[in-house]
Every structure is written in structure tokens, then in C-alpha cells.
């Protein structure tokens, strides 16, 4: 088993599995966010549950953080090794002739997402920790909707979120669809999976962007 950790194929499996895990998390995240558009009450309930349920807080949240860290640390390790594998670069290299831009620039879409995660953590996670543990404020199951709307009041933040979701879409476009290939599946059944992954890569980031824009413009209109 120890050989598995050192080999290039093991790193490929780790990227694919941690990526797939993060995709599952995205489904959960986008579902709860959508509730904020359609039912503020349900959104408050769900957010309160996620914020105070010990299973979510002390088991799922740490696993998620580990998943994110593993995915991006491994991504950097691979990038460094891959650069080393071509120590002298081409004078002329026509990457566009044989591979899509998104697949060749995962490190850049990934870096933008990572920078976004820092902002996102500051916006919501740091805020939660401060509220719950630093200020030790009492539980208030109805605060989440208004806090969210407030966050999206500044236009710059809304734009940063929307741009990041665009990059998330590009990252998913290549990453999600190629995860089964990494895990060793490439046959007539994976064709359908790839189509689903591409649709997912468009629909989910669009939904996230819509939610951010909705909370920015809705209070202005009303």
C-alpha cells in the first residue's frame, strides 16, 4: 500500500476522489443557497441546523476542510512536479492545437477558487466563529437570511463572487468530467456521466451566481 502514496497514479486517484467529494459538497451547498431565494424560513432553519448540529460542526466540517486542503495541496505538488518534467521549455508550443484551454489551466482556475475561498471563509465562517465563540452571542435561528442579504449589499463583493463562480465552472468543466477517467473508467457508460458532469459544471455555478445577484438586486428593487 505504501507504494500507492508515492506513485503518480496514486496522486491522480487522490485528486479525483477529493474532487468528487467536493462536488458532493457543492450539491448540498447550492441546494441550501437556493432555499434563500425561494423560502427564507427554510433557509434559516437549514443554516441553523448546519451551524449548531454537532455532527455537522465537529465531523463533517473538519472532513470538508481536510478535503479542500488535500485537493489544493496535491494540485500544487502536481504542478511543481509537472513543471520539473520539462526543464527546458519549447520556443514554440501550440497547446491550443490539441487540448482545451480549461484542461491546461486548472492551476489558474484553481488558484482563483482558492483566493475566493479565503474571502468566503472570512465572510461567513470567521463571522460564525466570532458570533458563536468569541462574542458568545445567544442562538438566534432567524438571523441567517438577513446576514446573507447584508453580505451581498456591496457590489464589489457580489462581482467577486460571480467571477469566482465563473472560474469554478471552468474548473468543474474539466475536473468533474475527467474524474472517472482518473479512477479507471472510460467506456460507453462514462459517456453519459461526462455529459452530466458538463451540464453540472454550467448549471451549478450559474445557480450560485444567480443567488448572489438576487440578494444584491432584490433589496434595491424592493
Amino acid at each position, binding site marked *: 500500500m505504501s507504494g500507492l502514496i508515492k*506513485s*503518480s497514479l496514486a496522486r491522480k486517484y487522490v485528486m479525483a476522489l477529493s474532487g468528487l467529494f467536493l462536488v458532493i459538497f457543492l450539491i448540498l451547498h447550492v441546494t441550501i443557497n437556493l432555499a434563500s431565494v425561494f423560502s427564507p424560513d427554510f433557509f434559516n432553519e437549514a443554516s441553523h441546523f448546519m451551524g449548531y448540529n454537532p455532527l455537522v460542526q465537529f465531523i463533517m466540517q473538519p472532513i470538508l476542510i481536510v478535503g479542500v486542503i488535500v485537493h489544493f495541496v496535491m494540485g500544487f505538488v502536481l504542478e511543481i512536479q509537472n513543471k520539473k*518534467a520539462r526543464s527546458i521549455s519549447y520556443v*514554440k508550443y501550440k497547446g491550443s492545437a490539441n*487540448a482545451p484551454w480549461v484542461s491546461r489551466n486548472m492551476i489558474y482556475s484553481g488558484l482563483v477558487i482558492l483566493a475566493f475561498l479565503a474571502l468566503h471563509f472570512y465572510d461567513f465562517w470567521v463571522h460564525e466563529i466570532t458570533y458563536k465563540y468569541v462574542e458568545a452571542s445567544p442562538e438566534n435561528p432567524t438571523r441567517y437570511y438577513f446576514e446573507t442579504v447584508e453580505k451581498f449589499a456591496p457590489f464589489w463583493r457580489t462581482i467577486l463572487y460571480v467571477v469566482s463562480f465563473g472560474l469554478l465552472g471552468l474548473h468543474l468543466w474539466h475536473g468533474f468530467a475527467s474524474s472517472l*477517467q*482518473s*479512477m*479507471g473508467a472510460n467506456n460507453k457508460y462514462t459517456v453519459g456521466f461526462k455529459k452530466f458532469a458538463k451540464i453540472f459544471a454550467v448549471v451549478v455555478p450559474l445557480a450560485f451566481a444567480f443567488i448572489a445577484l438576487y440578494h444584491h438586486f432584490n433589496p434595491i428593487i424592493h
Partner: protein
Amino acid sequence: MKLYLKIWRQKDASSPGKIVDYTLDGVEGDMSFLEMLDILNEELVSKGEEPVEFDHDCREGICGTCSLQINGEPHGPDRLVTTCQLHMRKFNDGDTIVIEPFRATAFPVIKDLIVDRSAFERIQQAGGYISVNTSGNTVDANSIPINKHDADEAMDAATCIGCGACVAACKNASAMLFTSAKVSQFALLPQGKVEAVERVQNMVRQMDLEGFGNCTNTGACEVECPKGISLTNIARMNREYLSATLKG
């Protein structure tokens, strides 16, 4: 036609190289790319200059000896052909053509456009074989029934000529397409099953030791491969390796 060539010249493995400009007139569309270089070399020799060194052997797309990164693509802009089969009619009068060696840390330049691809041989030696009794009681291979689909896929994988274009095209200089073709051609056949577990592990280990990069599924290798080796071979190798590792 008249061509403006920008060619990588490098005296030996330890000297630094550089791009040198040449102008070549009288090139015809029916010439192969290597014939075009032959003409350039004849001119250079007649002027008392050193000819441009490049690899070639069969000149009919079967040996995998020719290489060259031509205008940023291995084996040039055409698909499913090697450099020796690339016709000059793919270019136009007045074109500038940049000609470089295949670039990978695992393929060091020996001279000019020639690179050392023995890393591929070491990967092959690490497991790209089957053990057959040849001491007089050899069993005829055709006596073992093989499913037509498997036989076809194994044959397709076996058409890899080991040219290294997959590595040259890959932004990560990964050798996954080559290695997976060599794993696949045996993994699909009953004769290859006996050593399947060690084969994939040893070949992948050697591939990593040689310093090739990691595959990130860009698919550039499949597009540039002169033999059309498919990415499904890489998936098969990923699968074989995973099951081999889990087995022990």
C-alpha cells in the same frame, strides 16, 4: 516554395543550444519533412557547415525513430502521421517553421534535434513482456481462443511505435499514453494475465523514476499520437494499477 526555418542547434548534451535561422528555397509539396531537411543538410555540407542532426530510420511511419516538434506540435500539424510521413504540401510558400527537439527532462538532447528516448526502453524492460517457454514445447499462440473485441483492442494498443510524441505534446511531459499502451496490449490477453499485477506496478514505478510528469487528462497525447492510441488505454492502466495495488 521558399521556407524560413528556425532550427534548434545544440553541439552536445552538455552545451547550451539556440535557435538558428535558415532560408531554404526550392522545396516541393511532394517532399516529406525529412527530405526537406536532407536538402537543407546538403546545402549546409556543400558550404562546409555542420549538418542538422535528426533521428530517422524507416521513413514510412513504422519504426518510431523520427521525432521533431514542428511549429509547436510533435510530428507537425498533420494528424495520425509521423514526421517522416508529413508532406511539405501541408505548408505554404513563405512559411516560417520552428523545428525543435521533443522536450522532456526524461528525454535529454543528445545533439541538435536528437533526444535520448531510452527511458521508454527501461519502462518496457520493467514489465512490457510475457514469459513464454521457448525450450522446444512452445504452444502456438493461436491455440488459445481470444475474444475478437479484446484481440482488436490489444492490437490497437500494440500499434504504439514508441515515438514519444505523447510526452512531447503533453504540457506535463507525461508518459502515460505510451506506458498504458504497453500495459494494455498484454492486460487484454490471456498470456498477459499471469504477470499482470507486477507488470503494471513495475512499469508505472519505472515511468515515475524516469521523471515524466503526471497525467492531468488534457488529452493532448491522443490528438498528437501518430498511431491514434486512445485515452481508454490510460483509463485501463489506472484501473489495472488500482486493482493491482489493492490486491497486494
